[in-house]
């Protein structure tokens, strides 16, 4: 990190980099989507089990030969693979995600219904995790060695807790034993508490570890020293200097975190009986519902791409050194 050459066409350069940045993101994103679509297309087809059966309600069905043939025709499964593949790509390109085998509904429509609840869950979890991580980090920097040890212990343990276990324990505690909160998740605030907590706690652990390290580093850094020498109070150092530095890795992690939240949603949504992407993903894979799986995969991939772009952007905004805006 050595001095940037002084301004002078700097703004122009930024405009240039910005444009390149945007283009890069879009290009990369498209590539990822294509790759995911392709991977899923071939991956799923290698899974034992005739798609036509999936359409006819699973292998348990005593669907007649003609019924199966009918289904194959309807879903174009009788065409050669490459035709199906390019057809698939074309349809995806034109925004057509196809029709779910098991639900017999347009995948886009189904996803449309499932995205909001999962989004609510993920966003809240992320927010709560951030809040927790920050609070703990800040408190620990204020308290002495013991506090720090306690905080880091807390973080490490919560980061290690498996979602499904945490969920069970929380239900056991707050729903069954104490009866404070509903065990089933509705969109009512009360119903959201447990699922959000389940997702947020482990995440908070991860974020916290990283943030606290950087927070400490910032706190001991020369610029903190000169701030103190300027008469800045510890709180001042925290608010005006350290926190911002601590936020950077947090932001960088948030992109990744969002992805992991999706995986977490699979478990949480089925335990708390919450409609959402995660749950449908599980059922879709077990039902060999190729269009659904593809849809969910593409959606989450797209989400990932977008989130990544945003967290990158956020990072640039929070860290002027990256010459963002």
């Amino acid at each position: 990190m050595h001095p940037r050459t002084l301004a002078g066409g700097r703004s122009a350069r930024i405009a240039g980099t910005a444009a390149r940045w945007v283009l890069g993101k879009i290009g990369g994103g498209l590539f990822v989507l294509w790759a995911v679509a392709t991977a899923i297309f071939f991956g799923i087809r290698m899974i034992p089990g005739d798609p036509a059966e999936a359409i006819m309600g699973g292998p348990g069905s005593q669907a007649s030969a003609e019924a199966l043939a009918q289904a194959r025709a309807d879903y174009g499964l009788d065409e050669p693979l490459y035709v199906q593949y390019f057809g698939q790509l074309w349809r995806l390109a034109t925004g057509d995600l196809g029709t779910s085998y098991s639900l017999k509904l347009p995948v886009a429509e189904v996803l449309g219904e499932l995205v909001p609840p999962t989004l609510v869950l993920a966003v809240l979890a992320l927010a709560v995790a951030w809040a927790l991580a920050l609070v703990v980090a800040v408190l620990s920097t204020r308290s002495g060695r013991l506090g720090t040890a306690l905080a880091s212990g807390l973080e490490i343990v919560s980061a290690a807790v498996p979602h499904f276990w945490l969920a069970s324990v929380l239900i056991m505690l707050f729903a069954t034993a104490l009866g404070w909160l509903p065990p089933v998740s509705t969109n009512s605030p009360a119903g959201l508490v447990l699922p959000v907590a389940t997702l947020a706690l482990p995440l908070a652990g991860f974020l916290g570890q990283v943030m606290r390290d950087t927070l400490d580093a910032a706190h001991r850094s020369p610029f903190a020293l000169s701030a103190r020498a300027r008469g800045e109070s510890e709180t001042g150092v925290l608010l005006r200097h350290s926190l911002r530095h601590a936020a950077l890795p947090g932001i960088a992690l948030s992109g990744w975190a969002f992805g992991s939240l999706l995986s977490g949603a699979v478990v949480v949504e089925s335990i708390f009986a919450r409609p959402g992407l995660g749950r449908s993903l599980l059922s879709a894979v077990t039902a060999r519902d190729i269009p659904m799986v593809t849809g969910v995969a593409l959606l989450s991939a797209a989400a990932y791409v977008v989130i990544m772009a945003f967290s990158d952007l956020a990072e640039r905004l929070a860290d002027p050194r990256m010459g963002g805006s």
Partner: protein
Amino acid sequence: MNAPAPILRVENLGVSFGETPVVLDVSLTVDPGECLALVGESGSGKSVTARSLIGLAGPGSTVRADALEVAGVDARGLSQRAWRSIRGNKVGLILQDALTSLDPLRRIGKEIDDALRLHGSGSGAARAARVVELLAAVGLDDPVRRASQLSGELSGGMRQRALIASAIALDPALVIADEPTTALDATVAAAVLDLLAGLRAAGSGMLLISHDLSTVAKVADTIAVMQAGRIVETGSTEAILGDPQHPYTKALLAAVPAGKPRFARLSPATASPAAVAAPAPEAPSAAPGESGQPPALSARSLSRSFKVPGAADFPAVKDVGFELLPGRTLGVVGESGSGKTTTARMALGLLAPDAGSVHLFGEPWSAVPEAQRRTRRPSLGAIYQDPLSSFDPRHSAGQVLADALSFGATRNPRKHAGRIAELLSLVGLAPEVAARNPATLSGGQRQRLAIARALAPNPRVLICDEPVSALDVSIQAQVLDLLDELQRRLGLAYLFISHDLSVIRHMSDAVLVMRAGEVVESGDTESVFTAPQHPYTRALLAASPAPTPGR
């Protein structure tokens, strides 16, 4: 000292971290308008002393003093709140390397404004105006824009000025400057020192902390020399520089290369066994021009530029040429960004020139593929500013040397025990060092080890890139002496790169003065230094600390 009450009075200050004392019985006084310089080498405890004076000795520290008066306040057992009202207000602290001392995420203006805001001076608008005023005062052009920039966007000098601005925002009675110029190029450093001198002239007292006697010479009224946590000698600048009493002070002064002729010892003679081990130094091989033999290393009109994202390529080196004769030293001097290192890397064949060529002993060097260079590399060695990072962290000193000796065939020290011992003694390291990991060695020892490694393949040319810049004066002296002896003994040719004129002058037969990628002046050392042609050379010379008086 009774007339004006001293701004700072410390008696028997002691600071310790945990069980280990770092500062012992330090007593200081600074009067208004006086500048006291606290001089010492790494770990002498000078920085800690400085910080204890504003109650920031650091976590886990215990500070005690018989007296600690800051700006008329008895600072012993002050509450944090009380301390805060003093810091920045009555006392300003200036740290070294503003890149890390200013928050890289915040605008310069904000950083300065903090000082004002914290001590509640004036409205936002008023403060904004004051900030610009300050920036102008510390000599920054276009202060309005500067205020809105990040420290990362400023050059080292500007940054330092900005930092100073933030420290003097409320023109404090006492300014503590901790290595304020260390990270800066000579010319810039000079300017910054002038700025500080100006402050002092304006009446505020100053505590100037530095590792370098010659730097403080210009500004300081009084000098206190610190060693291992104690002040070993205090006195007026003239007295200390002219007639040092304490052996440590003497050694420090002796170590300063400024004004010491070529080959003159800088360190106590006992320091390097190489000298003892050395046979009668074979006279440096034939003087330039005298023989037909080709130069050891020669460069013809080298050019190299680098890509800058979203901008025109940045020309790091433009049309540079030189000839390094066997057994001689060619000094390359210039400030940061002058292209010294780029030139060195091209000479080392690590970087392909865009134009021009490098020849090694008359043979094409830069032009041939690496595969062909490889066989000839043993004749060309290199040492760097930061030796540690050039060692494999997993290897012990012995392994490093074994690897070098065996041309990479083995890293088993036992295979080359003999030669390793030789090399170590040659560079003045004890044989036990072989077993140690470079990370556990001192800065000087690391550089010696680096030299040993460079010598292992029996090179005839050594490229030294700022080999002593990171070392304390006394250590620097030893290493320079060592290089001298090795040259005389082994007839090595040095391409010696440094930003420090006095070091260059002491080490080189001929010099190359570089600026912004170009050679502005070159020639035989003495003539260049005594009769500089190019204005830039003159500026450099003017800026570099004067030869210390009294030898």
